């Protein structure tokens, strides 16, 4: 078990470093996660067992990137920003390693304009996340992308700051939807 988890952790670290060699993104925070994970393995072996990065338990472990479930988009944009690539790599690997797990991706849009059109905009966001995950090894039947449009705002004030929080895709796993 320990060998497996060490192997997975190493793979995970490799993935992250592979990822950080991608084109630069100013707000990227992957380097912080990269340095933290290997040092945890080296410094305190007892914690390694409790942190198998591709286990179901990691989904809700705040130390795991798998616990990070929200991907934010720019205004009128449906492109997954570079800063989320490493996060999606981790989720893609998780789905590949846990073939019975399924994922529901809920796209959201800010409140301005038509509800049904915003539903379609939220769908473009969840579809973009789904496409990334497919490319990263998740099977088609593990993924469902849907939209909540402007109907479930994380923030309900009419400010740019608030709207930015609502231009979002959320990841849910089996048992959470």
């Amino acid at each position, binding site marked *: 078990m320990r060998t497996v988890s060490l192997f997975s952790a190493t793979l995970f670290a490799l993935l992250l470093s592979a990822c950080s060699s991608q084109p630069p993104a100013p707000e990227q925070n992957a380097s912080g996660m990269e340095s933290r994970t290997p040092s945890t393995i080296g410094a305190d072996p007892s914690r390694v067992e409790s942190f198998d990065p591709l286990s179901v338990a990691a989904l809700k472990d705040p130390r795991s990137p798998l616990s990070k479930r929200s991907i934010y988009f720019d205004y009128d944009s449906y492109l997954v920003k570079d800063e989320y690539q490493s996060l999606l790599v981790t989720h893609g690997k998780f789905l590949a390693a846990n073939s019975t797990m399924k994922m*529901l991706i*809920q796209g959201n849009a800010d409140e*301005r*304009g*038509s*509800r*049904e*059109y915003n*539903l*379609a*905009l939220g*769908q*473009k966001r969840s*579809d973009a996340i789904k496409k990334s995950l497919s490319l990263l090894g998740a099977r088609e039947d593990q993924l*469902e*992308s*849907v*939209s*909540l*449009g402007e*109907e*479930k705002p994380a923030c309900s004030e*009419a400010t740019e700051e608030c709207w930015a929080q609502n231009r979002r895709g959320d990841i*849910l796993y089996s048992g959470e*939807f």
Partner: protein
Amino acid sequence: MTSAHAQLKIEITGAGANRLPIAIADFSGERIVAQALTSVIRADLDRSGMFRLIDGIGMLGDNTPPPFADLKQRGADTVAGGTTADLNNGRFETRVRLSDVLKQNTLDMQAYVHTGAQLRATAHRIADSIYEKLTGEPGIFSTRIAYVVKSTGRFELQIADADGANAQPALASREPIISPTWSPDGSKLAYVSFEAKKPVIYVHDLATAKRHVVANFKGSNSAPAWAPDGKRLAVVLTKEGGSQLFLVNADGSGVTRLASSAGIDTEPRFSPDGQFIYFTSDRGGSPQIYRIAATGGATERITFDGSYNVTPRPSPDGKSMAYIARTNGRFQLALMDLATKQTQILTDSSKDESPSFAPNGRMLLYATEIGGRGVLAAVSSDGRVKQKLSVQAADVREPSWGPLVR
């Protein structure tokens, strides 16, 4: 009764051009019943913006000759008098006579047998009859409206009379409900519910309160629109990738793809003759309104001005189209003459959504925001008469005007 069930309050501003001056006399007979009837009839006719009510002529039975000289002096062109008799079996009979003041003759006589509980419904029928006799178009006072009320953690799909009275919940949910739309015969509502953590289309039978799923495919299922024959719906599904238009039978069978685009296609609406489907698409780079034959084929772009034109709603006569246009950051209800492509902005608000024509095409009901709260508003299709309908302490949205009652 919770605040969410509270009656919609109506506030009217503006006045129509060339309003017909009419006197609705106090009906004779059973005083309390007659008073209740005449107050609803007057409110209906006044709210339509088509009539100017002439007051002060007192009581007039259906069989009494109207005081034509006095009415003429007060400026009334038409007068309605009536009598309500107690039939002593729990029922009343109300007889109404409509007379032309200038020609001094009878235009119409009608009799209605009704219970006390049917007072408002009877008054709406009388107002409909007067409206149709004098304008040549059907009245919409007996129709119903559907809308969604959002209160804390609760969404209710409600049905009310066109004047906001008798609001009843058809569905309550902790998750959002959007896009309710009436079947052409008024017996059902199609809507989108998010109770399954994703949008799913239902058809809900109002008499039985039973509903069935029309579309719950992988991905999102939304934007239902009834074909005029009530047998099929146009819907938006993402099951084959992207938000795309499909047709489906009302029982959920027979799903067929209607159109294909690389972008978003949504908000379908049939033309009243069933020939075309109007819809919103961003295929040209910004959301604009297009139409396609209901059998599929080539699309035709309808809107060109501005960078955001959405939510097409063809008028009941098929000659015009209401939609939402964004102008200088404001989302406003607009009306386009489909033959000339001339457009008119009908409102001065800035967050208009979800317009819905009255079945006679004279008024449009829509959602807007006042003081950060969702309210329903109505405007005459010439933009002259405006009404605001609000429920205290709740958000009201997604209005849909029901069909004529046959």
